[in-house]
């Protein structure tokens, strides 16, 4: 009896021991930690790809850019997705009295301030991880050439991330591969800008000193040679300087000669190149184009539509809307688009030989004018549309080639640098403007003999049209320096409440014409 009891008891204990010995140390199989992900130096390429992907999704994310384009009255949308309506709406007096950045943990619209902040620091952090592995820890990716390639592209992404912070926030942290996160310190945005420029200089030096072609994974398809990376870095540097000023005073003191210096070596120099990342509608999400190259998502503001065809596209938006256009600019033409199957769903007119390359017309009002007729327009931006590729009759689905910077944009940055300098070469500026004005728009050429002011007007027209759909909000950044933003529109973003909260710092905000009007969280 006792033996049997012992045997049974032993069996039970053995069973428990067998299962109980299964380890409690379970590795997360779904997502790696940093140590695991970095254990293979070749995986550093995935970190570069990750930094690129994060930067792309941040750069073209509507959460950040949607409000900016509405504030700039470039694109317009009465949808409140991504807080576009909230920040795009005007008060009865035509100002944005109550539209300061809602920098409060309780405000639904706080997400627009967090978008760039978190996204750019993610891409910055990933870039710094790669640079630390290579420069501090001496890791090598496949071979010396691939290691230099990763180092160069990581530097480029670091520069692009710093640019995003410098042109959008009043202050930020500057971080590199040696930064101690225990001693974080906010620095003025000029310091952030200068750090970005120094980074681009290193990219240019690295790209010029090495031979490589980037792997397809870093831009989700397109590949770039080291020469092209140098051109892109030059354009990005010019973009950073030109888009930095918050107002006309800062614009005057901008180093436009340095803009010319960078732009003349940029993407339209030598063998021109466009910086394209391919969106796939999933991991690489072209959010701005999804909204604003879609007929039923957002429209071109009537301010811009009016520039394209003053005769038919009146601004402000009239009751009942504007009729089909007949623009001298080939980018709009008669506004026809698509085929007959789109008429019922999208209110378009089937394409004729006079259909435009960039814009089309729709009879549909996509939202209630009661939200503000200034949020309406009949003109849609369809330059990057993939109709027919992406659905039976559907408009842009957030996928396809997405331009980060274009060669034409570089021309216009270059031209601006010349036009803003007292002794800038107007003839060269006119040639650069004509690259789109004539070639794409079919408009009479600028001769270079015009006054600087007249040329600036032509430049401004081109800039309005050509930067639409590039990245987030180029024209917002231009209008805050060049004038045109509605009174009360914030000129930059505060450090998000979420970040301030981590360190227990007081909340603050920018924008609005009244007193401080961001509802602050009650003091605990």
């Amino acid at each position, binding site marked *: 009896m006792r033996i049997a009891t012992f045997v049974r008891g032993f069996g039970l204990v053995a069973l428990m021991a067998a299962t109980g010995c299964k380890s409690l140390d379970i590795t997360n199989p779904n997502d790696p930690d940093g140590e695991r992900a970095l254990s293979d130096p070749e995986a550093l390429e995935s970190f570069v790809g990750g930094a690129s992907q994060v930067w792309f999704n941040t750069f073209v994310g509507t959460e950040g850019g949607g409000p900016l384009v509405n504030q700039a009255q470039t694109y317009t949308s009465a949808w409140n997705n991504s807080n576009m309506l909230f920040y795009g709406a005007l008060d009865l007096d035509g100002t944005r009295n109550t539209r300061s950045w809602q920098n409060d943990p309780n405000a639904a619209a706080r997400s627009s301030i967090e978008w760039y902040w978190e996204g750019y620091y993610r891409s910055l952090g990933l870039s710094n991880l790669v640079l630390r592995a290579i420069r501090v820890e001496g890791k090598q990716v496949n071979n010396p050439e691939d290691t230099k390639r990763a180092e160069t592209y990581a530097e480029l992404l670091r520069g692009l991330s710093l640019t995003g912070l410098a042109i959008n926030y009043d202050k930020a942290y500057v971080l590199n591969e040696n930064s101690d996160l225990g001693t974080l310190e906010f620095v003025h945005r000029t310091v952030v800008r200068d750090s970005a420029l120094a980074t681009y200089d290193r990219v240019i030096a690295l790209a010029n000193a090495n031979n490589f072609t980037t792997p397809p994974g870093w831009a989700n398809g397109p590949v770039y040679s080291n020469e092209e990376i140098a051109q892109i870095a030059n354009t990005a540097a010019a973009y950073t300087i030109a888009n930095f000023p918050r107002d006309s005073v800062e614009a005057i003191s901008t180093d436009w000669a340095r803009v010319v210096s960078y732009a003349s070596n940029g993407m339209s120099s030598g063998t021109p190149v466009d910086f394209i990342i391919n969106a796939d509608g999933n991991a*690489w999400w072209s959010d701005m184009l999804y909204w604003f190259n879609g007929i039923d998502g957002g429209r071109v503001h009537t301010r811009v539509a009016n520039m394209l065809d003053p005769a038919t596209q009146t601004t402000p938006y009239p009751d009942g809307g504007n009729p089909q256009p007949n623009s001298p600019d080939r980018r709009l033409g008669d506004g026809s688009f698509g085929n007959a199957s789109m008429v019922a769903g999208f209110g378009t007119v089937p394409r004729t030989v006079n259909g435009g390359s960039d814009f089309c017309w729709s009879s549909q*009002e996509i939202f209630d004018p009661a939200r503000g007729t200034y949020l309406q327009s009949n003109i849609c931006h369809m330059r990057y549309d993939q109709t027919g590729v992406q659905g039976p009759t559907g408009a842009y689905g957030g996928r396809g080639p997405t331009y980060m910077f274009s060669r034409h944009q570089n021309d216009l940055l270059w031209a601006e640098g010349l036009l803003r300098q007292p002794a800038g070469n107007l003839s060269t500026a006119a040639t650069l403007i004509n690259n789109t004005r004539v070639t794409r728009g079919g408009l009479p050429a600028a001769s270079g003999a015009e006054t600087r002011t007249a040329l600036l007007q032509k430049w401004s027209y081109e800039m309005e049209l050509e930067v639409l759909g590039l990245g987030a909000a180029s024209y917002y950044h231009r209008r805050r320096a060049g004038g045109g933003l509605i009174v009360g529109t914030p000129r930059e973003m505060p450090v998000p409440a979420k970040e301030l909260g981590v360190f227990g710092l007081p909340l603050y905000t920018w924008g609005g014409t009244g007193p401080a009007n961001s509802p602050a969280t009650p003091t605990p």
Partner: protein
Amino acid sequence: MARSWTRVARMAARALGAVALFSGAALAQNVVFTGKVTSAGQPLGGASVGIVELGVGGTTQVDGSYTFTVVIGQNANRGVTLRVRAIGYTPKQAAVTLTPGRVEKDFDLTRDVLNLDQVVVTGVGDATSTRKTAFSVGVVDATAIKEAPASSPLGALAGRVAGASVVTVTGQPGAAPAIRLRASTSLTGRSDPLIIIDGTISRLSLADINTEDVERMEVIKGAAASSLYGSDAANGVVQIFTKRGSQLAEGQTIFTFRNEYGQSWLPNRVKGNQAHEFQLLPDGDFARDANGTRIPEFDRIADNPYPVYHDQMGQVFRPGEFMTNYVSVGQRRGSTNYNISFHNSRETGVLGVLDGFSRQNFRMNIDQSLTDNLTFQAGAFYGRSASDDGEFTGMFFGLRFLEPNVDLLAPNADGSPFNALVNQPPNSGNVENPLYRLANAPVSRDRDRFNGTFKVTYKPLSWLTAEGNVNYEQSGQMYKSFTPRGFLNSRGAKGGGSLFQQSTVERAGNFGGTLTATKEFEWFTNTTKLAYVFEDQSMNRVSASAARLGVARVPEFSAATLDAGEVVPGSRTETIRNQNIFAITTFDILDRYIVDGLVRQDASSLFGADTRRATYSRMSAAYRLSEDLPLPGIDEFKLRASYGTAGLRPTFDAQYEIFRLVSGNVSPLTLGNSELKPAFSKETEVGFNINFLRDFTLEYSYSDKVTSDQILQVPVSAATMFTNRWVNAGTLAGKTHELALGAVLLSNADRFWRINLTLDQTRQEITALDGVQPFYGGPDATTAIFRVAPGEKFGVIYGSRWIRTPEQLAATLASGRLTGVAGDYRVNEEGYYVRNSQWRTRDEVPLKAYNEDGTSVVQIGDVNPDFNLALNSTFQWKGLSVNALLTMVKGGDIYNLTRQWPFNERRDPVMDQRNKPVDERKPVSYYQVFYDGINANDYFVEDGSYVRLRELAINWQLPKSWVQKAKMFNLDNARLGIVGRNLWTSTDYSGYDPDVTGTSGLQGNPFTYRVDYFTYPQYRTFTFMLELGF
């Protein structure tokens, strides 16, 4: 093999020897107990009769007789206790002396109509009478829930257990409700209790379990009782026992066939605006501009009728079918008892286009005694269910934007049903014909579930019991969502289609062993248990999605186009292991002082690598005061107090540093925390139980629950490149008062009437955040309106107010947010301050209230009810029985987002101005201001109080003589009845139903984040019931 045969032969020889021995001298060494057990003169089958000290006994047959034999051995002339027990009856016992021969003893038991002698096993070391528990244990047995069985057993706790709150996460047929016992333990997550089904620590949906199979549920409500279950039990424990046939009479076979059939329908419709502000033509149609857009009138007042009206709510919500069939066979014979059941149900819900939810369950439980001291119990369950969802397709959103002139039943241009083109410019594309979506974009969820249980009980000694158990459950779920190519949006544009499919397999097993020693000493009895529990849990998920389909009407991935990024595969694996040991000892001193203590240590893979173990303990005591101090009219008076600790485990991902992989690229997400530990909950419970005047019981409990080391996902500096990190921080305190009153108002041979009343009140406060900045929680980012800050009540809504008082106006003027002086403003007809200059003009708008410092966000609501009350009544008169459950929630606010969102498109009935004096009519733009960009404001905070007749069942037991005349098989009894669920609700809440929470498909704490968020509403059912017994 040879050895086995040898062993069998040896055993056979022993058996033969034993028979020989028995037939000879054995009779002289045994004592045979026989007798009859009755109640009110009627035989009582299924009663258990036995000798406590020796652990032997038998079960009465249908005629109440029993017999069992005791081998006297060394117990000759020993005085022992012969005890008889039956569920629902007060036990009796008699002293007998063991002498060879025959002992005949009859017992007549009285009905325990107040359930004073229930035996519970949850939270205690061994089976214990509720008279002797040192903490509150709620018991809901089959008699309480069989008349109106809920789809999910947890639903049956509502109104039956004081302190148990039940909310409907979604009214979707087949969905399980959320449960909270007493105060919440988590600042951001759910507080559902640990569920144990027949010993299986269940990690899977209770929606798979049918209530008809439930024999009994035991509920312990917090750490003061649930310490025994360790790091996953701070929310309390609900233990479910299914039917096993163990309560049948010896030799009895019982066959039950129960059917319910009826209908369900939506009791309350949400109205829309029946008027508009657009210009009309003489023929009553809309005037339109050249683009076909309707033209608003200058005054913007919605006081014009629509050309035609359609009953859209009636078109969408149709009475649905509710049906259950339940068959069970139970038998007890000798050393074996079993119960086998089959359950079939179908609930179509209230969306006429959908099939709803159907489920088929098969369960088999068997108990077998192998020898006097070795028994095993086994059980198997298999269930499968299928549902088509109306919940997650967003149809309840689009429905709220419909204008009343749209005919949802009109055909499309191609003749297909349910007109998709319901957008009427200038309104937005938010509008949608729900019927078109439901009919053309199916969403299905099919699930298989298996559960197996095995338990061996071995008593090597009369005072020692060893148990071993193995429990395993598995679920496989297939979710599929298909939108065909060519699917029309509300403007008629065709989409490219999409397909998503996800297969999830979950497994959870626990096995363990216990040693229980029960020793009686001269003046006390001690029960001590040592136990080991191992839990192993896994989840594997594989999914694929296609963003575009190449052909129409092919709902498989063969139709997917394969451009980059358009077909995305996914997979996920989670493995969780826990090793737990505990010891519990209980002293029952002189039958009146009960003291128990326990200690438990859990080791879990969910804890950070540097904090793998956590220890919990409990001390509790009860004093049966009435045993020492008899009081007139008091039958039993027990004081009790208990203090215990328990935990809440982190989720699988929480401890890890996570670099998310997206298309093979790396993106940082969560900072790891190797020191993450379970939240630590400590609870003190004190209370008393009084049974008085024979027919009344009163139970009161006070719970003081404090849960520290909350598991919070907190933001980290963006400089780290990570978004957040899980940390232990914050303390949530809750105090709960519970009262349960039971009364038997009538009890005689023909009539019986019992009522139970439960009342509870909970107050919760956040006492610390440990360095984490105050934040706002909510079901999603849009509704993060519930403030979490030290010193704050838990469950308060923050947002803006509209100026309604002179003080608010003065503060707003002082802030500079309004200009001028108070005299420039006035109160309008609706009680809001407006500008004098705008009053009764098309520009009139309400004004937002600001504090003097320019801030506007203040507390605007509190979701916590003042109290919950329930009244449960059971009345029987001869063959007629009436069971009713009335529940009441007093107070507690709801944030009605379902109402707020459509304000932007003038869809709320408040905008219909037709019945107002002309000069008091407001433009739609006045009301649209309240929309406020979906920011929270006090216009949409509503009182969620309600009184509800939750269950009503009227049954009639046909007279035996009628039944026997039927001569149908061996038909023994038959019952007919009607059953109503959610039959009547009284509330001022303007939404579909006040029992609402915003977490359907979303995140967070359903009891705290009470946001009405376009969810499937609760519905009413009314059915006829037929039950046959053989």
